[in-house]
């Protein structure tokens, strides 16, 4: 065995962020829970599931494109899963695999999950081809149990599980958070076209926020919906505004009279802070690359904020229409996008502004159809992409839908 790292604590929390579509949820969950047990049976480790907020180990399924993982997967076969070593805690499975349980068909989720948890706990790959930590999947084994090399490896990291520690451990075990459905609050429908906030985030990813959830908008469809707090720990849902500034790498989220600051997914110390120099309950925020300023909107007014200087707000708020010609008051969201245009969203519609910050002809248009890949006027209004693989989506069609000269958007989106 090879040791790659170690947790400095033996009581770890975990969170299952989503499940594969090829297994009933309860079967998939049981397989993942059993995977933890292989390790807690042989080492003084305990694992407690949490349904919200931060967890040491986070399990999720993603496909070829994932805004949260730099290692994309490769479709059915070949790479099945990967995981970070301690103390990072991410465990990812390829959602395109045929995940199964108690059958020789497909790939056994329990065994692969136990393997990846081995990595998450600090084990590297084993030279024994029949060991759980062998790099190549040896197929489903009805009476699967850990190989002596696996046990030796985990005990080299965390010690042995002796009977008395067992008792002691059990007493110490925290009560498991009562099981609640993995989606504690109603999931919004991206095809409603209504947004709380929208943001062009780091690495050019476009995020849409609604209620307690966030998803990415890509040229091939929508990313899976995640709870906001699953990505940005400590962030509440139902945001007022969100803005990312490439100038400072800061992401600011606004809600009520508070502002949160993150760098990527890590909250900056001292936040949230109280908003005291601009009005609470903002409507929207955007970053405009042309003057490298952040604009905050509320009602019919806006503030222009220089993040790196002490801005004199005495002349603010100024009328929105004075600078942004043709946009509605009280926008629900706004962003400067990577095509150089500024977009305002309100209700189910959006407005596009040119570089002179003037709304272009032909606006407003329908957000659900043009941004969320929703099919218009069909009874089944599920968005293309997202949890369903886009079927036969013609990018150039998307390009033309995402109004502007298709070549501009095509190049941008594609």
């Amino acid at each position, binding site marked *: 065995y090879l040791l790659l790292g170690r947790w400095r604590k033996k009581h770890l929390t975990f969170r299952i962020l989503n499940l594969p579509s090829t297994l009933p949820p309860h079967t998939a969950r049981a397989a993942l829970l059993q995977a933890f047990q292989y390790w807690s049976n042989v080492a003084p480790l305990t694992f407690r599931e949490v349904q919200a907020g931060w967890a040491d180990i986070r399990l999720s399924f993603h496909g070829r494109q994932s805004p949260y993982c730099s290692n994309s997967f490769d479709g059915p076969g070949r790479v099945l899963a990967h995981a970070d070593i301690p103390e990072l805690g991410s465990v990812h499975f390829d959602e395109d695999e045929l995940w199964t349980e108690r059958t020789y068909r497909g790939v056994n989720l329990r065994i692969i999950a136990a393997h990846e948890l081995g990595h998450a706990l600090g084990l590297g790959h084993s030279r024994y081809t029949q060991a759980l930590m062998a790099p*190549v999947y040896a197929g489903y084994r009805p009476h699967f149990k850990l190989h002596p090399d696996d046990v030796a490896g985990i005990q080299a990291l965390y010690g042995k599980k002796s009977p008395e520690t067992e008792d002691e451990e059990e007493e110490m075990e925290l009560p498991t958070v009562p099981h609640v459905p993995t989606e504690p609050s109603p999931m919004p429908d991206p095809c409603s076209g209504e947004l709380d906030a929208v943001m062009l985030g780091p690495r050019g990813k476009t995020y849409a926020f609604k209620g307690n959830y966030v998803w990415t908008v890509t040229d091939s469809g929508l990313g899976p919906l995640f709870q906001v707090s699953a990505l940005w720990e400590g962030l509440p849902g139902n945001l007022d505004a969100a803005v990312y500034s490439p100038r400072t790498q800061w992401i600011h989220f606004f809600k009520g009279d508070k502002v949160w600051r993150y760098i990527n997914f890590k909250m900056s110390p001292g936040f949230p802070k109280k908003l005291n120099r601009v009005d609470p309950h903002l409507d929207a925020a955007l970053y405009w690359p042309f003057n490298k300023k952040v604009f905050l909107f509320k009602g019919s007014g806006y503030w222009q904020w220089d993040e790196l200087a002490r801005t004199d707000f005495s002349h603010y708020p100024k009328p929105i229409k004075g600078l942004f010609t043709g946009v509605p008051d009280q926008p629900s969201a706004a962003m400067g996008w990577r095509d150089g245009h500024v977009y305002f969203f309100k209700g189910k519609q959006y407005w596009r502004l040119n570089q002179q910050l003037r709304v272009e002809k032909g606006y407003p248009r329908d957000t659900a159809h043009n941004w969320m890949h929703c099919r218009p006027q069909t009874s089944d209004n599920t968005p293309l992409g997202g949890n369903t693989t886009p079927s036969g989506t013609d990018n150039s069609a998307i390009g033309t839908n995402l109004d502007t000269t298709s070549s501009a958007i095509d190049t941008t989106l594609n």
Partner: protein
Amino acid sequence: RTLGPSGKEEAVDYLLQYGYLQKPLEGPDDFKPEDIMEALRAFQEASELPVSGELDDATRARMRQPRCGLEDPFNQKTLK
């Protein structure tokens, strides 16, 4: 890309991706044949295949099997 009959390039990708082969820090990007053979030998030994250093069918088939995305620490030189 599937490991087709030639498959040499894909095999080198596989050896590189999983830590059997390491890109030289300086100098040309392509690998010396003896480095590739050494990496193949390490892979064949770890896979309990006949160790020949040659890209034979059994080695190709092994490279096609589903697996974990992390690297393998089996080539002592690259591991070091």
